[in-house]
């Protein structure tokens, strides 16, 4: 990234030597990203992050297939970057089906099959859920969509930290990535667009990124994403094993401290870096507050909106009631997480639990 900021300040679109040097660096990063997901470099478009990638995938694909196809299918547990985009398309006149999930966050292939129509243009289902870690078995879903002549997009942002991503094996047509989930810089991401899939761009005004994403490239960000993707591949196996061990250790510890604690999502087919835990009878924000006071950084199952505190749509879709959702914390493991840190977290949990009881 420093090379892009200090040594190679040229605009990649310029023909002079400085520009060509920057262009070369950008193309190297594209190769790194492509290698990380098993695609060819020409199938990678750089964006400002996964939100833009998801918007480009959904809006771009749906617009490109009008007027023959105008139906979109997604799931109830998608990130808002997909769900709100899908709802915006519905408001603009497109047809939308939101698939339910079971209590572990899985989508039934039969339900998808029943929802497909001749005019279904796109199915968008995330690879790993960001709140409970459910790893969706995408291949059967992709095959069902393709049998209907329907394209398939997946938001793979939460898969990137510790799962293999191979677009050839998965068969997806579009795949969104973000750098900051794999220790790259914030504000940069990518969209894989399978060769032969046409999208309408979101923006106009330049020829960058094959006219799919006009605008001068974020060269330092792109270099950071490329480096992060390369490092991700190098550390994938060891990171997965480490996260699995730490997750197991944390869940065991939580069950000893709070026997009525429930871990949300599946026991198997789960990405181990995400742990969603419900502590019945506790106020989630107070729990978070006391943990934060002791230096622990966790997240809530609810979010403040303009008027009220809204329960997580993901936990709602899994069937949790509002009280349980308000008593839910999300704990994420990272590259620097250690067993010693989990011991520290568990030790401060005991006091935090005592101080967060609703009754």
């Amino acid at each position: 990234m420093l090379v892009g900021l200090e040594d190679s300040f040229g605009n990649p679109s310029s023909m002079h030597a400085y520009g060509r040097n920057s262009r070369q660096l950008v193309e190297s990063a594209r190769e790194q990203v492509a290698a990380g997901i098993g695609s060819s470099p020409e199938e990678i478009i750089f964006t400002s992050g996964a939100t833009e990638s998801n918007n480009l995938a959904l809006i771009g694909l749906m617009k490109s297939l009008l007027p023959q196809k105008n139906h979109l299918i997604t799931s109830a547990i998608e990130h808002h970057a997909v769900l709100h985009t899908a709802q915006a398309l519905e408001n603009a006149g497109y047809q939308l089906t939101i698939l339910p999930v079971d209590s572990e966050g899985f989508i039934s292939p039969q339900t998808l099959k029943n929802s497909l129509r001749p005019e279904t243009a796109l199915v968008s289902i995330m690879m790993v859920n960001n709140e409970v870690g459910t790893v969706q078995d995408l291949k059967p879903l992709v095959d069902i969509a393709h049998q209907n002549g329907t394209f398939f997009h997946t938001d793979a942002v939460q898969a990137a930290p510790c799962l293999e991503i191979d677009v050839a094996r998965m068969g997806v047509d579009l795949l969104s990535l973000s750098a900051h989930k794999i220790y790259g810089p914030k504000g940069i991401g990518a969209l894989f667009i399978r060769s032969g899939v046409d999208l309408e761009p979101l923006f106009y005004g330049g020829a960058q990124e094959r006219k799919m994403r006009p605008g001068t490239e974020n060269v330092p960000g792109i270099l950071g994403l490329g480096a992060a993707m390369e490092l991700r591949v190098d550390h994938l196996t060891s990171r997965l094993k480490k996260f699995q061990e730490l997750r197991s250790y944390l869940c065991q510890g939580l069950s000893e401290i709070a026997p009525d604690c429930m871990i949300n999502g599946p026991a198997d087919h789960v990405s181990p870096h995400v742990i969603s835990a419900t502590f019945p009878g506790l106020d989630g924000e107070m729990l978070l507050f006391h943990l934060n006071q002791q230096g622990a950084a966790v997240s809530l199952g609810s979010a403040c909106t303009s008027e009220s505190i809204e329960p997580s749509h993901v936990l709602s879709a899994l069937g949790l009631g509002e009280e349980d959702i308000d008593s839910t914390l999300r704990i994420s493991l990272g590259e620097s997480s250690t067993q010693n840190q989990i011991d520290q977290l568990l030790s401060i949990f005991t006091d935090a639990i005592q101080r967060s009881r609703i009754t």
Partner: protein
Amino acid sequence: MMGKFHIRLVGGWCGNRMYIVQEHLSKLLAEQGYDVKIDQQSIWENYAPPQHVDLVLQLMPAFTEEELEPPSLLVRPFLKTLDDPKTLDLVFEAVALHYPSIPDPAQAG
């Protein structure tokens, strides 16, 4: 009474909700003839037990009764439902109990 009956609303991160609860209770209590001042305290900005107030209403179990000098009530249901009847009754009872004089209906807003 010398000054307004002072209620401190204690809440968390969601400042929007605190404002909505504050405005709603102010209106309801004024309608009942109480001369009250309700202010807010977010635990994220100030995690100290409120002092020198007449009543503490907590949207979350931030402070225990032992930590608080003033009387207090947990009004967590207001996070979801502004007009939760049971919680409103508790608030009205607490204000009636601790309010220093009978409200003058002529002063009702």
